[in-house]
């Protein structure tokens, strides 16, 4: 019998703190900075807002942001046509935005990943049927699907969530199916079959763990898209209804004042853009980080 083979060197032992600090430096701070507000506002809104967002002050309508002529520092971003503090309504609107984006994305991820996994793993007719369904979905322009759904179930929070799920499941399903197809052909999956492992074992021990990275990246990126989609739905008047507030609705309502009080539609839109941008950047960073890890594996 051959002698023992030396095991690989696991790398020089860096002091823990140095490693931790250098890891910290490589985090995507810009992205985190963009996403953090929506999280903080969404969760802690009532403790943060400087004014009650519902407080109407008809004496102070359309007051410009603090740094412009006529602005004042008690209303940082100015006031809307009812004299409500824009910054406070923005914080208030973050809650709906956050709930809708998270629930919608997770819901579509759950459905899409399941469908993609089943289609990719079992293949054959199931696969053909599910992918045809995805094709049909992809062929109906998103806005039309939203309008159809909105027409059917009326406006409201549920409409937004359902629309997001209906719109997004297919992109999860496609990517996951593609990856499952490749993973299914890996040697270790065949070997697991030869070792008498059940489908359940193979899916949970061999396929899913290798899909996890992709899922995280997809969810992060779709979260941003969900916020933009929510804005679109609210803009069409199919989202939450006043007096509830959401960023998309604020843009929609502010449209009339574009020429006279541009800040009313501008800031909510900017908030949407930044949040979506942050989640895109975070998704890209995660993908690179996971890719780098995958290339090591």
């Amino acid at each position, binding site marked *: 019998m051959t002698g023992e083979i030396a095991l690989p060197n696991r790398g020089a032992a860096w002091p823990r703190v140095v490693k931790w600090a250098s890891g910290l430096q490589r985090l995507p701070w810009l992205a985190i900075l963009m996403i953090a507000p929506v999280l903080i506002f969404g969760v802690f809104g009532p403790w943060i807002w400087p004014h009650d967002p519902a407080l109407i002050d008809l004496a102070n309508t359309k007051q410009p942001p603090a740094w412009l002529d006529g602005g004042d520092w008690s209303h940082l971003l100015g006031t809307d046509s009812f004299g409500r503090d824009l910054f406070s309504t923005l914080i208030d609107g973050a809650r709906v935005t956050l709930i809708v984006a998270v629930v919608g994305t997770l819901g579509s991820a759950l459905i899409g990943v399941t469908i993609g996994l089943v289609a990719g793993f079992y293949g054959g007719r199931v696969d053909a049927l599910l992918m*045809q*369904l995805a*094709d*049909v979905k*992809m*062929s*109906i*322009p*998103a*806005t*039309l*699907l939203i*309008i*159809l*759904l*909105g*027409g*059917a*179930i009326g406006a409201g929070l549920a409409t937004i969530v359902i629309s997001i799920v209906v719109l997004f499941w297919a992109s999860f399903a496609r990517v996951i199916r593609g990856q499952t197809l490749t993973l299914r052909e890996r040697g270790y999956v065949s070997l697991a079959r030869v070792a008498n492992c059940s489908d359940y074992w193979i899916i949970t021990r061999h396929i899913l763990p290798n899909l996890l990275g992709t899922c995280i990246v997809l969810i992060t990126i779709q979260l*941003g898209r969900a916020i*933009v989609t929510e*804005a*679109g739905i609210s*803009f*069409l*008047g*199919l989202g939450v209804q006043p007096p509830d507030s959401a960023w*998309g609705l604020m*843009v929609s309502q502010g*449209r009339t004042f*574009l*020429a006279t009080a*541009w800040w009313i*539609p*501008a800031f909510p*839109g900017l908030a*949407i*853009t*930044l949040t*979506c*941008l942050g989640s*895109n*950047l975070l998704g890209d960073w995660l993908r690179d980080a996971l890719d780098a890890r995958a290339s090591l594996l």
Partner: protein
Amino acid sequence: MLFYFFRRLGRALVTIVGISVIVFVVARLSGDPTLQLAPEDATPEELAQIRSELGLDKPIWMQYVVFVEHVAQGDFGTSIRYQQPALSLVLSVLPATLQLGLSAFVLSTIVGVLLGVVTALKRDTWIDSGLRGVVVVGQAAPSFWLGMMLILLFSVELQWLPSSGRMSLAHMVLPTMALALSSVAVVLRLTRSAMLETMSADYIRFLRSKGMSKSLIVWKHALRNASIPVIAVLGLQLSYLIGGAVIVETVFNWPGVGRLMVEALNARDFAVIQAGALLVSFFTVGANLLVDLLFGLVDPRIRYE
């Protein structure tokens, strides 16, 4: 190639059937249209009368068959609001939507591909990161908000371009830009990564070992190969842009399907919504079929399948 085409055609037909089922089912979900049509003081007998006139007393699959029969004959129902056939209403505004969607499509494809090639060739320089930075912001912004900001800048402040209506070519500039920007981002990113991948392919190295010039390698070989994954998403982009046009139209008062449908939505005018959704989807399917043909033209492996 013919085989490939027929297979694609078959798939497109199945997709159209699928779309009709979905539109039909969702429209039925919206509740009983009888109540909308009937006068408020209608008796149960009168309601039943209307219902059987509409065929709503038949089983659901029969209703679907009737629905398909009507659609096949060009009968998409009558708009309650305008008391006109829904089809002619939609057809009268469809060209405006297609004009907007297609011009944004052409613009975003050309600009996206060109910038994608440039960023790939200038990888990791300031040109690369700068362009990608701009585009990534464009991708994140909702198109309708972007449209408003464009109006604010170019119509309100600078007064260079008109902000609403569809009178001249100048009217098209802002809506097209608002619509195209996010699509530019998608095409750029895809082209860039596809270019980077092909540039590291073995056949590119072999071309270099033949002494071929860099421009020939990039524009003849690499770009053509990189275009395959880009073409694969063009169909999706078109569907996305036509859908996006519907929202952007609202911002710019562009007289297209979008405005018609939003109005129909507010008036609960289902015939119009149904007709709009079906027609625009059919158009998308057709465009996708064209994209598939384009695939066959570029890739001999598909042609000889």
